[in-house]
């Protein structure tokens, strides 16, 4: 457990976090591995955990009837996969597939939501960090929508 806590707190998403929060978080965390091609989760499944990637790459995909699945984003080492655990109805809205062997920390969403309710300082700290990730991804998604390379001249 001590090693898990040390490794967990070394993850970039938790960089600099108060060690007392680390002790709370480690109780919700475990090490997980996925083989290349294995799914972390599927669209509409319950979002009952999320992942901090230690190694490897994960593709977020959306299935479109009659077409091959579209990769909307890839997420790599040091990143977080999954935010749907945070807001009702707690269901994933995309598939997440390991494109390489992946090592990650899985955090139990119900456990973290409960501890955040019990300790709002922890909840606020986690919310600030998640908000940073979500805002960055929203900005990136907007840029993707712009399709900026469509007609740019030399």
């Amino acid at each position: 457990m001590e090693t898990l806590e040390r490794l967990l707190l070394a993850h970039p998403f938790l960089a600099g976090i108060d060690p007392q929060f680390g002790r709370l978080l480690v109780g919700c965390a475990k090490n997980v591995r996925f083989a290349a091609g294995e799914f972390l989760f599927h669209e509409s499944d319950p979002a009952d955990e999320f992942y901090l990637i230690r190694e490897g790459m994960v593709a977020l995909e959306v299935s479109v009837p009659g077409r091959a699945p579209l990769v909307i984003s890839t997420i790599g080492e040091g990143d977080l996969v999954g935010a749907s655990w945070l807001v009702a109805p707690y269901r994933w809205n995309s598939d997440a597939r390991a494109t390489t062997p992946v090592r990650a920390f899985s955090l139990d969403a119900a456990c973290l939501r409960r501890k955040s309710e019990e300790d709002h300082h922890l909840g606020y700290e986690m919310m600030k960090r998640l908000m940073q990730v979500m805002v960055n991804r929203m900005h990136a998604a907007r840029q993707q929508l712009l399709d900026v390379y469509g007609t740019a001249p030399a």
Partner: protein
Amino acid sequence: MSAAVLADAMLPAPYRVTAARRELSDVVTLDLVPLAGEVPDFAPGQFNMLYAFGVGEAAISLSGDPSDRSRFVHTVRDVGAVSRAIAAAQPGMVLGVRGPFGAAWPVAQAEGHDIVIVAGGLGLAPLRPAIYHVLNNSERFGRIALLYGSRGPDDILFREELGALRARLDIDVAVTVDHAGRDWHGHVGVVPRLIEKASFDPANTVALVCGPEVMMRFTATALLGAGVPDSRIFLSLERNMKCALGLCGHCQFGPDFVCKDGPVFGYDCIARRLAVREI
């Protein structure tokens, strides 16, 4: 500028197309050799005015190795009547050339620093001379990173060269695409997202950025967020250039002319103007 000098600068010199390589469905790289005289020196980031006789003239960045004095190399996307005529040029044909013109990438100023090169789409072409220069003189620079983004896997420019660069030990190369299917095994996402993963010391970094202007704005913001000072972020702007001498005013950008004062500008000088829609 005297009338004689002005006349010279406005007079295209005839260059023969010696090679035409199709890079993408709408992008061609041309090698040009003068019918008389030598190929002038050029600095990374500069451009020439290429003249398709009977059609018109367009500003096209130089995309070759600046240490290669045997030819000019230009990479052209077919987007309009003039660029279409230039991109359709075949070996043996003659084009008019005026130049080189414009402000260059500050490669000398970057010596001793880490260097981050961020290119989007065809923006890799104006940065290619800087990449050649930096790699030809890599001992003068710190860590070197090339971050490239394109629309999709089929739109990656200079794909083989990027592959070769990836195999080198003196440059980190990362490629991402905005959209992809499962057959693409690399990054998917916009190119500014590569910045947070790149290995460089932000306080000691010079960043060179070229691509669609929207992409450059977001990239500059990401570089600032990573801690790169605005005075060491450089962008190459695209405007409608006609005379290339700062006389006609077509490419005016606030108090500057992109053809003469640019196309390479320090972000600290133009950041506020980039946000003004009317400019």
